[in-house]
């Protein structure tokens, strides 16, 4: 496959961005749909090229296509290169990004119809897709970081897409800043790794880590630094607070960026650098623990949210935690020697990325479904929905499939990928397995709570008359149906094997007791949700009352927003330390400057009294001076 075509995969969307912003927006603003078509065309071609790359990679030795790279900056001995590489991991991500992005763009044609910022929307979406594809293809950390920040920027722009809403502007800023805090660690880690190895190249870094050329504390710190970047992007605890707020953006944005692709970039990064992580027990254990904890922690908050998108957001955080858990536990297995290095490296990546792969489809579908629902009802608040099953059968059906997939029901996609993670944690870090299995229960509960609240029962909204409950237009439904198909079959695609993981037969998976355990827990969750919200055997209100403290804890998100924003950011930093420094600057430093000036003037007002205006006094002074000089000459000669 020619290198130009590989570059075209990520350059095409950039090109589309350029066309939209420099040609379509200024000159064809009256035909906004054009920008949608350009975006879709660009991403469609990227998808085709990605599939071609997939075919090429599966035939290539070691599943790697080597691509030429270019010198970005050369200063003395320091040569910074940029380039791309196509391997199994990258190509799987390419498929995910291009296909989900394509579906979302088509959906957006309907969803964003009539919005004043239609062109801008598609320009940003193109920019995002290009950056994300570049991130996936980058073969060195610096180049990756370039796109890493690029997707962050697009996320900022798209969360704040409706910038006239104060919450959106605020959420956008929050997202950027929290991820940037993580990126601080990432950048430091890049510098540290370069200082120790003299390269940014990921392949070389992997080899050096595996051969032990870098190790010990340096490696641990570097890995932790990289993980802090990944945690910021993937909204892992304690940097998770931005993602739920990011739901202020348009729903297709949430589907693409904040469910399927960008937030998964953190997981991708850990997978990319997996040999480095696996070489440090401390680092990989951190990944596993943070992942496992985030999974259950986020799920707990998802249980009680009333905003459908927020439930999905917490679900995303939780599922990303799963992916980290999968990577982490296999890594722990490697470093504790339960599993051979060679096998483990492939397995870890396969486990984590397989879930990323399936999750991308069903989670983006869930978001698109939520968008479709709000398109009809004009709200995201589930308390004002209900009974939409009849009005929106297609939406309901696809949403149900995605939910089942998320809950991990055999034989849908989520089952297969989640199974791998559960197995890994069961084998290598049993403690985290228990957390994970509880999370399975919670996942099933909250997603079916959504289904019962939204689609079951009777319509509770007030907006019906003006809006009219109706199914979404075909342009929105088609992508949903396609994604629904993928949410069913994605687990059966040989992605896992392609990445080097273990294969499962269709029914063979059910022969493992572990599968039944998770199915039982998931079923339990669904049943409980039915009991409370479907059949109303249990009253949600009385349950809420009984567990009031816990409910408050969950619904107030453990007070993390208050802790970070009010206490830490505003009280401690901006109005505390920074205010003190501001005062210091105005009064001490500038005070010293003005003080010197004022002192000079004060001395002047005193000393000027010597200037009496009396000519004779001056004359006297002159002769005193002459005598003094003469005296000096006598004394010193």
């Amino acid at each position, binding site marked *: 496959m020619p290198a130009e075509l590989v570059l075209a995969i990520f350059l095409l969307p950039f090109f589309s961005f350029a066309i939209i912003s420099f040609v379509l927006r200024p000159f064809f603003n009256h035909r906004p749909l054009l920008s949608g078509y350009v975006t879709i065309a660009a991403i469609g071609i990227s998808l085709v090229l990605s599939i071609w790359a997939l075919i090429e990679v599966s035939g290539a030795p070691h599943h790697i296509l080597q691509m030429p790279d270019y010198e970005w900056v050369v200063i003395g001995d320091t040569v910074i290169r940029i380039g791309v590489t196509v391997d199994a991991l990258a190509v799987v991500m390419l498929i995910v990004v291009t296909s989900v992005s394509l579906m979302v763009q088509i959906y957006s044609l309907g969803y964003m119809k009539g919005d004043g910022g239609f062109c801008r929307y598609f320009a940003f979406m193109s920019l995002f897709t290009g950056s994300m594809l570049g991130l996936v293809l980058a073969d060195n950390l610096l180049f990756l970081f370039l796109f890493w920040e690029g997707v962050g920027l697009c996320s900022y722009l798209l969360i704040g897409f409706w910038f006239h809403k104060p919450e959106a502007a605020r959420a956008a800023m929050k997202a950027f800043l929290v991820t940037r805090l993580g990126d601080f660690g990432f950048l430091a880690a890049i510098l540290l790794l370069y200082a120790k190895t003299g390269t940014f190249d990921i392949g070389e870094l992997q080899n050096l880590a595996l051969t032990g050329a870098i190790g010990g504390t340096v490696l641990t710190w570097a890995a932790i630094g990289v993980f802090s970047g990944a945690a910021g992007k993937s909204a892992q605890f304690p940097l998770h607070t931005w993602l739920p707020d990011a739901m202020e953006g348009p729903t297709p944005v949430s589907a693409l960026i904040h469910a399927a692709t960008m937030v998964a970039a953190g997981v991708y990064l850990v997978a990319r650098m997996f040999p480095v992580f696996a070489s440090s027990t401390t680092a990989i254990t951190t990944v596993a623990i943070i992942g496992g904890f985030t999974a259950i922690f986020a799920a707990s908050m998802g249980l009680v949210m009333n905003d459908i998108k927020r439930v999905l957001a917490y679900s995303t955080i939780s599922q990303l935690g799963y992916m980290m858990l999968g990577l982490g536990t296999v890594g722990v297995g490697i470093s504790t020697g339960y599993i051979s290095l060679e096998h483990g490296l492939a397995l870890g990546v396969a486990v984590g990325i397989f879930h990323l792969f399936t999750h991308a489809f069903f989670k983006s579908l869930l978001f698109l479904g939520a968008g479709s629902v709000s398109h009809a009802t004009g709200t995201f608040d589930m308390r004002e929905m209900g009974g939409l099953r009849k009005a929106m059968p297609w939406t309901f059906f696809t949403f149900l499939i995605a939910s089942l997939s998320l809950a991990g029901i055999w034989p849908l996609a989520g089952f297969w990928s989640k199974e791998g993670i559960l197995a890994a944690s069961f084998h290598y870090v049993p403690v985290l397995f228990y957390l994970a299995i509880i999370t399975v229960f919670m996942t099933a509960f909250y997603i079916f709570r959504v289904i019962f609240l939204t689609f079951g029962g009777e319509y509770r909204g007030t907006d019906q008359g003006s809006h009219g409950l109706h199914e979404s237009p075909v342009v929105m439904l088609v992508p949903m149906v396609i994604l629904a198909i993928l949410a069913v079959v994605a687990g059966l695609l040989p992605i896992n094997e392609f990445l080097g993981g273990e294969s499962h037969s269709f029914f063979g998976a059910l022969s493992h007791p572990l599968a039944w355990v998770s199915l039982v827990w998931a079923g339990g969750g669904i049943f409980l949700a039915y009991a409370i919200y479907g059949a109303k055997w249990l009253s949600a209100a009385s349950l809420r009352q009984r567990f009031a403290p816990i409910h408050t804890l969950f619904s107030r998100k453990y007070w993390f927003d208050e802790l970070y924003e009010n206490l830490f950011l505003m009280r401690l930093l901006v109005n505390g330390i920074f205010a003190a420094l501001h005062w210091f600057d105005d009064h001490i430093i500038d005070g010293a400057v003005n003080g010197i000036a004022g002192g000079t003037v004060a001395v002047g007002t005193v000393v000027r*009294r010597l200037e*009496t*205006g009396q000519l*004779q006094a001056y004359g006297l002074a002159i002769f005193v001076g002459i005598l003094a000089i003469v005296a000096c000459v006598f004394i010193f000669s």
Partner: protein
Amino acid sequence: MGVGLEHFLILSAVLFAIGLYGVLAKKNAVVILMSIEIMLSAVNIAMVAFSRYSQSITGQVFVIFIMVVAAAEAAVGLALIIAIYRRRKTVDAEKFDLMKW
């Protein structure tokens, strides 16, 4: 001991010191001007003495220039005094403090 260079120089110094005292101590601006003339004469004596004892005519040439300046100074200085007197009705140097602070 015969009269030599030193004698003329000391005479010059004495005249200069007297003039200096007058310049610094007297209140009347005209007297101050007169004292300045004494100082200039003192300098002239020293110049001529040096000229005489070093066989160089330059000192005398300088004295001519000093005389020129002294004449000019006297003319301008007295004119100034008269101008000030017209304005302020006094020639008391201690009351001239326009340059104060």
